[in-house]
């Protein structure tokens, strides 16, 4: 296998990782998943180009000076397997999320929800006791699902 590092390959790595990062910034888990796959492939290419290129490293067939570096190839194999496992897990999570909420969008975290709710009530944070009555406890309030929010025009 010959893998000469040249400008084209580095541009390819850059495009893969760049697109991956863009997708990673999305809210939808399936796009995040695609982003991770792209970044993973970009990184694998980067590792491959980190080693010397050459012919198949088999003793007796190729003389040592012309052999390719095998270590990056071994690392890439491991990295591919790991990325594959994580991709499968993320896919399962996004399916589960779709199953539970009808969407695979990652909702706001608790702090964000609290801030939004407080801002809507024009409330400032009160005393040390927590300040809010129990019914505004985020664990107790049903946050509308993404599809409901979209219907209400809040999303």
């Amino acid at each position, binding site marked *: 296998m010959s893998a000469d590092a040249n400008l084209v390959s580095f541009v390819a790595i850059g495009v893969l990782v760049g697109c991956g990062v863009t997708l990673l910034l999305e809210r939808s888990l399936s796009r995040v998943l695609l982003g991770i796959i792209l970044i993973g492939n970009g990184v694998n290419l980067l*590792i491959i180009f980190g080693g010397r290129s050459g012919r198949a490293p088999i003793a007796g067939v190729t003389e040592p000076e012309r052999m390719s570096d095998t*270590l990056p190839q071994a690392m890439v194999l491991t990295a591919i397997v790991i990325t594959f496992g994580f991709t499968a897990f993320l896919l399962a999570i996004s399916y*589960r999320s779709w199953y539970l909420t009808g969407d695979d969008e*990652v909702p706001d975290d608790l702090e964000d929800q609290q801030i939004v709710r407080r801002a809507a009530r024009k409330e400032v944070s009160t005393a040390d*006791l*927590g300040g809010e009555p129990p019914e505004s406890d985020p664990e107790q309030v049903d946050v509308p699902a993404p599809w409901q929010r979209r219907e209400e025009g809040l999303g």
Partner: protein
Amino acid sequence: MTALVPLPVLLPLLGAALTLLLAKWPVPQRVVSVSCLATTLVVAVLLLVHAYRYGPAVVQIGAWPAPVGIVLVADQLAALMLVVSSAVTLCVLLYSIGQGQAETGESAPLAIFHPTYLVLTAGVTNAFLAGDLFNLFVSFEMLLAASFVLITLNGTRLRIRTGSTYVVVNVLASMIFLISVGLVYAATGTLNLAHLAARFDGLPEGVRLSLQLMLLLAFGIKAAVFPLSAWLPDSYPTAPAPVTAVFAGLLTKVGVYAIIRTQTLLFPGEQAGKLLMVVAGLTMLVGILGAVAQSDLKRLFSFTLVSHIGYMIFGVGLSTVAGLVGAIFYVVHHITIQTTLFLVAGLIEQRTGSTDLRRLGGLARVTPLLGVLFFVSAMNLAGIPPFSGFLGKLGLLQAGVAVGGVLPWTLVAVGTLTSLLTLYVASRVWNLAFWRTPCQTVEPTAPLPALTVGATVALVALGVSLTVVAGPLFDVTTGAAVDLRDRTPYIHAVLPDGPP
């Protein structure tokens, strides 16, 4: 003795395979996991004694000599971390077995808990023993994959929400780590840490600095250092109590361990010292201010966890022997105490059905034992004199004073302020949850399982006993820190004939 080195990794992995086979028989499954972790603890203690007396124990997997093959190295730092982590994982395992009934639901594939937990342990121990950068990456992935399963256990709505953030952030951190590994190999042609230590000296300054910053970025996300810590308080609290406890105790500390290891071995000198100290100060301050604002016990402890990571980073940033001694001592203290606090929070949740400070009250009268357990560990965290938290903080602050200068003195002030604010947070929890008259009548549920309480008591006792054994412990941490600064014991143990 070297035959023992791979055992802390092999035993939990073997246990994971066995418990998976025994999925339908809970009792043998528990016996296997407990005996695996107990044996690991014994092996870890033996390794620590060996490393303290005779220096690092090195094993070359498959008998390939060092720069080519994979090496596992148990020096004093690694062995000390192994001892603490196996003690903590064993206690948490007992706790979760005791809590067993609470975790079994109709939709809960509980059989998966033991194998996953053991894989997590294997990942943690492998990270401590890893002698090359790629093996460190693989062990991070092992513990991450297991932690993904544990944090989304049962797949409830809340856990899926927090789990997705956790998974994405950590996968991204792994990618950054992997990029750094690739670049390190491209620049030096080796990944063996001891070999790298020799080869890095010949690299141009700019290349070395950028590799250092890449690695710091990757480990900083895992260790939850301030600008990279936002994911932690949002994802930890929703997991089951024992899972949160072991994550809080161990996973961030693996990141801290990786920072200590790489900064001392690969990048000696004070290049990143100032940067580390600045982020350490911000981590302490922002973390503890977050904790002050929280009204949920688990979230509050997640913020104190972030805050106290700052102390360890401060010790590393000082890059003196005294600073490293303080940092290592603090890691040991903090693994124990943060795990204990989350277990106590779990007990409170099991007893009252809530960890919301606005609902809790009068617990000191209902369950005095819980009060004692919380009080001792909270005072330990805040750094009240007889406890190990005080000793660790004192060591770090003294190291800061000894270095002198504007930044170390600022950090000393911030550290003191953080300690006081931690005390404020602890006393606020005490007042709200334990002392005031109950605002809601606490339903007396079934008594807490003896094993759960026993495991928590054992961990509290371990935390307190750190004070009792503080002398020998400081000996070990000093030995570890001197070795780290010196670098030659590690390099010589891995490459006896010198770097090729």
